[in-house]
C-alpha cells in the first residue's frame, strides 16, 4: 500500500536543486494517523522532496489534510515517525519548528480590530524574543505584503476585507514567517480562478527566505526550477485537479488510508488513478501549451456515450 516517492528529479530538463535531490524535506515512515480509535492513515511511507511543490489530492475525508496536519505538528502520530530535514519531528522544539515550517490552516480566526499589517506581523511571532523584539521584522512584513499584492490593504481592518483579499492576507502571514517550508491546507478556497493562479504561482516560485526574489525570465511555466539558491518547499492540499497538475512538481494521490500514487502530474493523473481515488470517470488530455495533463470529467455520462 505504501509507495515511496522517487528521489531523483523527475523532469528531464530540471537541474538538481542544491538543497534537494537525495535529502527529502519530510521523510514519513510507518506513519499511522487518526483522531479516535479508527486510523485515517495506516502505515504510510512517503518522502516529500525539498525545494519543490508537492500537492496532495484525494476525495473529501481521505486523510490528505490529516497528513498535512501531522507535518505541521497539529496532530501527534499514533505510531511511526516523521523526519523533517533529517531530524525527528517529535524532538524538534515548537519554536524551532515554527521557524522552519509554516502552516496555514483552512479556517483561521480573524481577531477583532486588527489591521492587515498587524495581522501579517503576527507571522513574525516565532522570531520574536520574549520581550517582543526581533530582527528586521518590518522589512520582512513589507516583503510579504508586496509579494501577495496586499500592501495597499495594509491599513485596512482584516474583518472588513472580502474573502479573496483575506485569503491573500493569510498567505502573507505565513510568508512573513520566513520559513524554508510552507504547508498550505486548501489555500485557494474563496478565490476566483485568476486569484487561485496568482497564489499558486506565487508559492511555486518562492525563493528561500532571505534571497532576493528572482525575475521571471519568460512566461514559460514549465521551466521554473532554475532559481539560484533553491526554492522553498511547498506542500499543499488542493481540490482542483487541473490546477494541481499545473502547479505541482510532485503529486500525491491519497485514498484508502494511504498513498495510491506519487510522482509527476503525468504519472499520477491517469484514468485508472482518478477512478480509484475519486471514483470518477474522466478523460485526460495534454494542455496544448504546457503539456500538463488536463482532466475532463465525464462522470456517469461516459457510460451512456
Amino acid at each position, binding site marked *: 500500500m505504501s509507495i515511496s516517492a522517487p528521489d531523483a528529479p523527475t523532469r528531464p530538463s530540471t537541474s538538481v536543486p542544491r538543497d534537494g535531490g537525495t535529502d527529502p524535506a519530510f521523510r514519513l515512515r510507518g506513519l499511522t494517523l487518526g483522531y479516535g480509535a479508527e486510523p485515517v492513515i495506516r502505515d504510510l511511507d512517503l518522502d516529500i522532496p525539498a525545494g519543490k511543490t508537492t500537492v496532495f489530492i484525494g476525495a473529501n475525508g481521505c486523510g490528505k489534510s490529516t497528513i498535512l496536519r501531522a507535518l505541521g505538528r497539529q496532530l501527534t502520530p499514533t505510531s511511526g515517525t516523521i523526519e523533517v530535514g533529517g531530524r525527528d519531528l517529535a524532538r524538534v522544539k515548537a519554536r524551532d519548528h515554527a521557524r522552519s515550517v509554516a502552516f496555514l*490552516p483552512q479556517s483561521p480566526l480573524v*481577531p477583532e*480590530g486588527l489591521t492587515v499589517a498587524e495581522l501579517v506581523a*503576527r507571522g513574525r511571532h516565532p522570531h520574536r524574543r520574549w520581550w517582543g523584539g526581533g530582527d528586521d521584522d518590518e522589512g520582512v512584513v513589507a516583503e510579504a*505584503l508586496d509579494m501577495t499584492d496586499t500592501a495597499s490593504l*495594509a491599513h485596512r481592518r482584516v474583518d472588513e476585507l472580502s474573502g479573496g483579499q483575506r485569503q491573500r492576507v493569510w498567505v502573507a*502571514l505565513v510568508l512573513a*514567517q520566513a520559513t524554508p517550508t510552507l504547508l498550505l491546507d486548501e489555500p485557494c478556497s474563496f478565490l476566483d480562478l485568476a486569484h487561485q493562479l496568482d497564489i499558486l504561482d506565487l508559492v511555486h516560485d518562492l525563493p528561500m527566505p532571505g534571497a532576493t526574489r528572482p525575475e521571471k525570465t519568460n512566461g514559460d511555466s514549465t521551466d521554473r526550477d532554475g532559481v539560484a539558491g533553491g526554492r522553498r518547499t511547498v506542500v499543499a492540499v488542493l481540490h482542483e485537479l487541473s490546477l494541481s497538475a499545473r502547479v505541482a512538481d510532485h503529486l500525491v494521490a491519497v485514498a484508502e488510508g494511504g498513498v495510491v500514487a506519487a510522482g509527476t502530474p503525468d504519472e499520477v493523473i491517469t484514468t485508472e488513478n482518478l477512478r480509484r481515488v475519486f471514483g470518477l470517470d474522466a478523460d485526460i488530455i495534454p494542455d496544448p501549451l504546457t503539456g500538463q495533463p488536463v482532466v475532463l470529467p465525464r462522470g456517469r455520462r461516459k457510460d451512456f456515450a
Partner: protein
Amino acid sequence: MTAVLDRTTRSDQTEELVHELAVRRRRQVLRVVVGLVVALLAVMAVRVLLGRYTVTIPDFVAIVGGAQIPGATFVVMEEKLPRAVLGAVAGLAFGASGALFRRVLGNPLASPDILGIAHGASAGAVTGMMLWGLRGVQVVPAALVGSAVALAIVLAASAGRHGGIVGQRFLLGGVAVAALGTAVVTQFMARLTLNDAHEAAVWTVGSLSGASVDRILWLGAALVVLLPLGAWLHAALQPAELGSELAVGLGSRPVPTRAAALGVGTVLAAAATAVAGPLAFVALLSTPIATALGRGRPHILTAALTGAVIVVAADIVASEALGTVDLPTGVVTGALGAPAMLWILLRSRKVA
C-alpha cells in the same frame, strides 16, 4: 534591471508604510493610556474633594502632609481617600482580569463576574469568616480557594471531549456557579452576626465601605506582581487569537498559556473580591469600553484603567446619589452594567 529597481523602491515604500502604521498604533495606545490615567486621577479627585463633605485643595494637601484639621482629617484619611484608592486598585484588578478572560475564551460575555468567579471568591471569604473567624485581609486565602472552586466547576461543566472550553456552555456553568455562590453567601449572612449592614453588602454586591490601609497595601502588592504577569500572558496569547491551529503553527503553545492566563485572571478577580466584594459588571464592561477607545484593539492596560475609572465613578454615584444614604458601590455598577450587558448581547448577535 529596471524591474529589480522598481521592486526595491516599492518594497522600501511598503516598509515605510508598515513602520508608520506600527508607530501610529503605538502612539494611539499611549494616547488612550494617558487619557485614562488623567480620567482616573480626575474621578479620584472628585471622589476625595467634592460631595456632601467638600475639602479644598489646600486643606487636602495639608491633611495628606500630616496636618490635623478637626473633622476634615478624619473624613479624608479614614473615609474618602482610602475609598478612592481602594476603588482604583480593585477596578484595575477587575479590569485586567476581564481582559484576560476575554482573550482566553474569545467571547464578549466571558468575564469573571458572569462566570461566577467573583461570587465563588465571595462565598469563600464568607465561609472563612463564618467557620474560622477570619477578618480583614485574612479572608484572602479563603477567597482564592472559593474562586478556584468556582473556576473548576465552570471548566468541568463546559469541557468538551478533547479538553478545553468548548462553545457557549461555560456561560451556563457560570450562571449556575454565580447562583451557588450567592446562596452560600446569603445563608452564612443569615447566621453571621453582622451588625453593620454595610459589611454584609461587601460580600453580596460589593462595596468599598471596608476600605483600609491594610487592604489597599495588600491588593496593591498583588497588582505589582500580577499586572505585569497578566500583561505578558495577554501578549503571549496573541497567536491564539488566530485560532489554535495557526497558533501551534506559529510555535506558541496555546494550551499552557491559556491555562496560565485563566489562573492569573482568577487570582486577580479573587484578590479584588476579597477586599471589595463581587462588584458586578466591572470586569465585563471594561474590556469592550477599552477596546472601543483603542479603535477596535483590546489592551490589558487600558482595560485595567477603564475598570478603575468605572469603580471610582460608581462609588461617587453610590455615596452621593441618594442624599444621606450610602449605597453599596456594587449596586451602582450592577445598575449600570445590566443594560450594558444587554447591549453587548444584542450586538454580538448582529455580528454572529
